[in-house]
C-alpha cells in the first residue's frame, strides 16, 4: 500500500517543477502551462488527503479547481491573443512598457 507521504511528496515535486517553470521560463504560454501544472499538483494532494481521510469535500474542490483552471485557460488565451494581435510576440521580455 502506498502511503500518504508518497502522494504528498510526488505532488510537492510536481508543484515545485511548476513554480520553477513560472519563475524561469520566458514564454507566456509556457508559463501558463506551468501554472496549470501547479494546480494539478494541488489536485493530487487534495485527492490523496480525501482518500486517506475518508472525506469527500476534497474531491469536490478538485472538480471546482478543474473548472476554474478551464476558465483561467480561456481568459489567459484570450489575453495572449489580444497581445499577439498588437505586438506579434508572446515573449514576456518584449513586454516592457510598464517598468519602473
Amino acid at each position: 500500500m502506498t502511503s500518504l507521504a508518497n502522494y504528498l511528496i510526488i505532488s510537492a515535486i510536481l508543484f515545485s517543477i511548476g513554480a520553477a517553470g513560472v519563475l524561469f521560463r520566458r514564454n507566456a504560454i509556457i508559463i501558463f502551462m506551468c501554472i496549470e501544472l501547479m494546480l494539478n499538483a494541488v489536485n493530487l494532494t487534495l485527492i490523496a488527503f480525501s482518500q486517506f481521510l475518508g472525506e469527500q469535500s476534497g474531491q469536490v474542490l478538485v472538480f471546482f479547481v478543474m473548472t476554474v483552471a478551464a476558465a483561467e485557460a480561456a481568459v489567459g488565451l484570450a489575453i495572449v491573443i489580444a497581445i499577439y494581435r498588437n505586438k506579434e510576440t508572446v515573449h514576456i521580455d518584449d513586454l516592457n512598457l510598464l517598468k519602473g
Partner: protein
Amino acid sequence: MNYNDFIAVLPLIILAMTGLAVMMWDAFEKVPSRSPLLLTVVGGMGAIVAAVANLTAAPVIAFGGLFFSNTYTGFFTIIFSAAAVLSALLSEQFLKEREMIIGEYCALILFSVCGMVMMASGANLIVTFLGLETMSIAFYVLAGIFRKEESSNEASLKYFLLGSFATGFFLYGIALVYGTTGTMNLAEIRTIMLGLAPKPAATYSSLLLTLGMLFIIVGLAFKVSAFPFHQWAPDVYEGSPTVVAGFMSTAGKTAAFSSFILLFPYALLPTAAVHLGSEKIQIVLAILAACSMLYGNIVAVSQTRIKRMLAYSSIAHAGYMLLGVSALNENGITGVAIYSAVYILMQISAFGIVSVLEKSDGNGFELEDYVGLSKRRPWLAFLLAIIMLSLAGIPPFAGFFGKYYLFLAAINAGMVWLAIVGVVSSIIASYFYLRVIVLMYFRQANDQVEVSVPEKINTSFVAIAFAVAALLVLGIYPSLLINTIGYLFR
C-alpha cells in the same frame, strides 16, 4: 435545505442576476445606451438593501455550512456593492470618451463583486477559493478591457500570470489545511484549532499545517499586494484603465482582507489556539505589515506620476490593514472593517479624479500636471485636497479613525513596535499626500494661462462628490460607522 438559506444569500443572487441581465442587455442592444449603467446601479442598490435587511436578522450559516450570513458579511456586502456602484458611475464618462461600450464593463464589475461577497461570506474553504477566483478572473479581463492599447494588454497579462501563480499557492495552502484538519468548514477548523475537537490522527502534521497557513498567507498577501509580493501592483495599476485600477485597488484588496479575517483571526488562529506555530505565524503577519507600510510609503515619496504614487501608497494601506489582521483580536477586526469602508471611499474617488483629469491621449498623469489645479478646476481641486488629507490620516477626516483603531489593536495585542512603525510610516506618507495639495494650491504654473473651467455636473462628478461627502460625515461622526461595526461577531 430551506428557503431561509436563499434569503441569507439574497445580495449575492441579486448581484449575479443583475450581472447576467446586463450581459444579455449588452448582447441584444442595437444602439449603445445608458441602460446597462442604470441597471448596474439599481442592482447594486438592491444588493445593499438586501444586505441591510440581513444585518438585523439573526446570524445563520446557510446551505449546510457554506455561507455565513451575519453582520460581518452584511457590512462587507454593503461596502463592496457601494464600491461597484461608485466605480460604475465614475466610468461612464471615461469609457464614453474612449469609445468603449459600458455593458461588458458593468457586467464584469458585477461578477467581480459576486466573487468578493463570496469571499467575505465563505464559511467553507471551497467557497472562499471560488470567490477569490471569480473576483480575480473578472479583474484579469477588466485590466485588459482596452483591447487595442498595449499598456492595457500588458497590465492584463502581468496580472493574469502573477495572479494565477499566487492562486496556485493559495490552493496548495487550502489543500494542506484541509488535509491536516480533515475539514473545509471554517467553524469546524476553528474548534479543532481551539482544541475542542480531535485532530484527524491519520493525516495531522503540525509542520504541514504551518506550511499550509504560510501558503495561504502568500496567496492572500499577493492579492492585497503586501510587501514582498507587491511587484505587480504599480505596473498593473498604471497600465490598466484608471477607473479599473481604482476598483481593483480598493474593493479587490478589501475583499482579500475580508477573507483574511475569516481565515486567520476566526478559523486558523483564534485567540488561545493550541496549534504550536501560532505565535510564529502572527510574527510573520506583523513583519509583512511593517515592511509593506514602510516600503509603500518610502517608495511613493519618489514617484512623479500620480497613478504610481497612488499604487505605492496602496501597498502601504494594505500594510495598515494587515497590521489589524496580525493583531488577531477584536479591535483589529473592527479596525480592518472601518478602514476598508473608509479606504474604498478615499481611493476610488482619488482614482476617479485622476480619471476625470487624464486626457484620452495618455497625458495628464504627471504630478506636474496638477500644478495650479485650484485655479483651473477649483471644485475638483477642493475635493482632491480633502481626499489627500483623509488618505494622510489628518484628524478631522475619516482616514484618521481607521488608522486609530488599527494602531490601538496592535498595542492591545502587545505589539507596540508595530504601532510605532505604523505611526512613523504615516508621517512619511503625509509628505507626499500634502505635496499634491501644495502643488494644486500654492504653486503657479508659469507657462499656462489660468482659466477656470466651469465644472460639468456629470455622473463622475456626482459620484466623487458623494464619496467625499461620505468621508466628511464619517470623519465628523465616526460613531455612525463604529456603532454599525459594533455588532460584528456579536
